[in-house]
């Protein structure tokens, strides 16, 4: 009798352990197999980028440069001992993310800030998707542009999001810059776009 009890206890323990392992396996399989669409991933990435960009522009650059007038922001921030411009902060983040992603096998994406009216000519659209996307988001306020394209033999899902002049500093700085091709931006205008690329299989 004692022996049977012991056996039952042992079997129960084994059963519990097996069930726990099986359940844990299912949960971890669910976690690793869970997928989001490429579009949802791009949208989520953009939401984070755009929020960080807004915080930097409003709470750091606009506050310290315009409101409290304690420091300048300059594209030559090292020489001028100044804050980096919001567009540069965005680019540096993009470059760091690209560098860190190289070390992660399943993380692969890139993003850039571009404009049809770029101060730095290297930020003008280059690919057909970029040209069409930037035009689309400028003409269709509130809408994003999604497409696929092939670059250097790789297929990409490419998403373009409008980048809007939210603060007076965005507009005044772009209008007054010696290299600007457009001098009549107003607050709320689409001034450029964020292009996010995620490689996809054929």
């Amino acid at each position, binding site marked *: 009798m004692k022996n049977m009890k012991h056996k039952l206890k042992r079997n129960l323990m084994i059963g519990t352990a097996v069930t726990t392992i099986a359940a844990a396996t299912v949960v971890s399989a669910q976690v690793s197999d869970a997928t989001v669409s490429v579009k949802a991933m791009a949208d989520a990435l953009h939401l984070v980028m755009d929020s960080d960009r807004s915080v930097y522009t409003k709470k750091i650059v606009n506050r310290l440069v315009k409101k409290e007038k304690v420091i300048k922001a300059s*594209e*030559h921030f090292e*020489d001028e001992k100044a804050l980096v411009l919001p567009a540069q902060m965005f680019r540096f983040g993009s*470059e760091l993310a*690209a*560098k860190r992603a190289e070390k992660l096998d399943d993380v692969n994406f*890139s993003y*850039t800030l571009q404009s049809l009216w770029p101060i730095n*000519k290297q930020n003008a659209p*280059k*690919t057909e998707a*970029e040209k069409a996307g930037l035009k689309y988001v400028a003409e269709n306020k509130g809408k994003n542009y999604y497409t696929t394209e092939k*670059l*250097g033999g*790789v297929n*990409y899902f490419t998403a373009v999001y409008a980048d809007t002049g939210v603060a007076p500093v965005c507009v005044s700085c772009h209008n*007054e810059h*010696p290299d600007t091709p457009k*001098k009549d931006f107003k607050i709320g205008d689409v001034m450029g776009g964020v*292009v996010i*690329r995620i490689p996809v299989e054929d």
Partner: protein
Amino acid sequence: MNVSETSVKWILWIVLTTIAGIWLGYSMLSDSADKTIFMPGALSPGHHQLAEACDACHADAFGGGEVLQQSCVDCHGQDRVKPFDSHPAKKFKDPRNAELLESIDALKCVSCHTEHRVEITVKDGVTQPDDFCIHCHKDVADERPSHEGMGFDTCKDSGCHNFHNNRALYTDFLIKHLDEPPTMKEVVLPAKEYLSVIDEVVEYPRERYPLVSLEEKDIDAAERFDIKPEVKKDWLETAHSKSGVNCTACHVTKDAEGGENWDDHPEHTACASCHSVEVERFTEGKHGMRLKQGLSPMTPGKAMLPMKEDASHEMLTCSSCHGAHRFDVITAAVESCLACHDDDHSLAYQQSPHYELWQKEVSGEAEAGSGVSCASCHMPRISYDVSEWSSRIIVDHNQSANLSPNTKMVRSSCLHCHGLAFTLEALTDENMIKNNFTGKPAKHIKTMDLAGKENQRRLKSAAEDEDASMFGF
């Protein structure tokens, strides 16, 4: 038994092949054997000192191009980021620039700097034809009309662009330096600051050697050493004794088991326990690069530049320039250099206005920082990131990092005292380089004229905008 001639030849062939095989195999596999036999061509002037250290670049026998690329980055990676690289690898990793890589694969250093090809290697180790800029910038005049009609071979080395570092040349910087005189009124070079930042030097052995002034009675070398009076005098009169650095700080080294041993001739590694950045930079330049690879120290006899014959066998370590015990930075800044270097530029230094200023400073006639030694330009005091989070003024002991192309010297050296226009013209004038900058530059460089024109355009455009807004357009 008669052995036929053919058999003798066969036997001879087998014996010779076996001997050659053993010799080549030993050369290949032994750490100490000379491997230059396997070299496919001579090394460029930048790497010629490392001929005995194949594995400095060929770090892994089983890797491909990525192994070589990593070796380039291990030694030169920092120069591709700081002070500023206008063609960094990250720019070309962006998929939108993929098509640019079809012309020149800018992700690989060897695309422009191929080794073992001295017959096509030009200045700065470049192995590309002169027209390499045109692959990506043929439409430059659309963006910059001032560049209309300029020849493909005029981009670099004419006081204008260079591929990796354009810091001295961006338009706003040029405009800021328009109308400067050849020599500024107040000229003082950056001052030393090691003592004031010593708290931040993590590796400093402050517990064992507190920052207090020491006297003769404090000497901690064992009594069995009969210290020469001049050694004592040198130490007592200079910074080490005044900062608590006793004999054992340099002369006692730890072995693998942690035991302490007295070392009569401390190497650069002993200096590194307090001066790690300086030593690290020294081993990255041409004076110390052999030490970094575990080879014997560089000697002037191995150099490609003209050197004094009687210095041929001088071993380059910290003490060969600084001298032991006195560590005289005045000697290290001029006399130590001239004890070996024997080219026109070096020989002309003591007849130059720079040397005149140096003599005045050394004699106390002029203030500190007003003289110009060899080191003022070639080992300048620069603000250097000693960690990711802090920077301090160091003497950059990697003189190669500040040498070629010589526009690298514009900010770190020349601009402390000279206007930008004069600087660019002087640095492109071969004669002035030869005579160590005595006289005036003979050539006029258009760089500043272009910046002046751009400035006029900007002022005009700003004035028009102001008029337009006044009248409500």
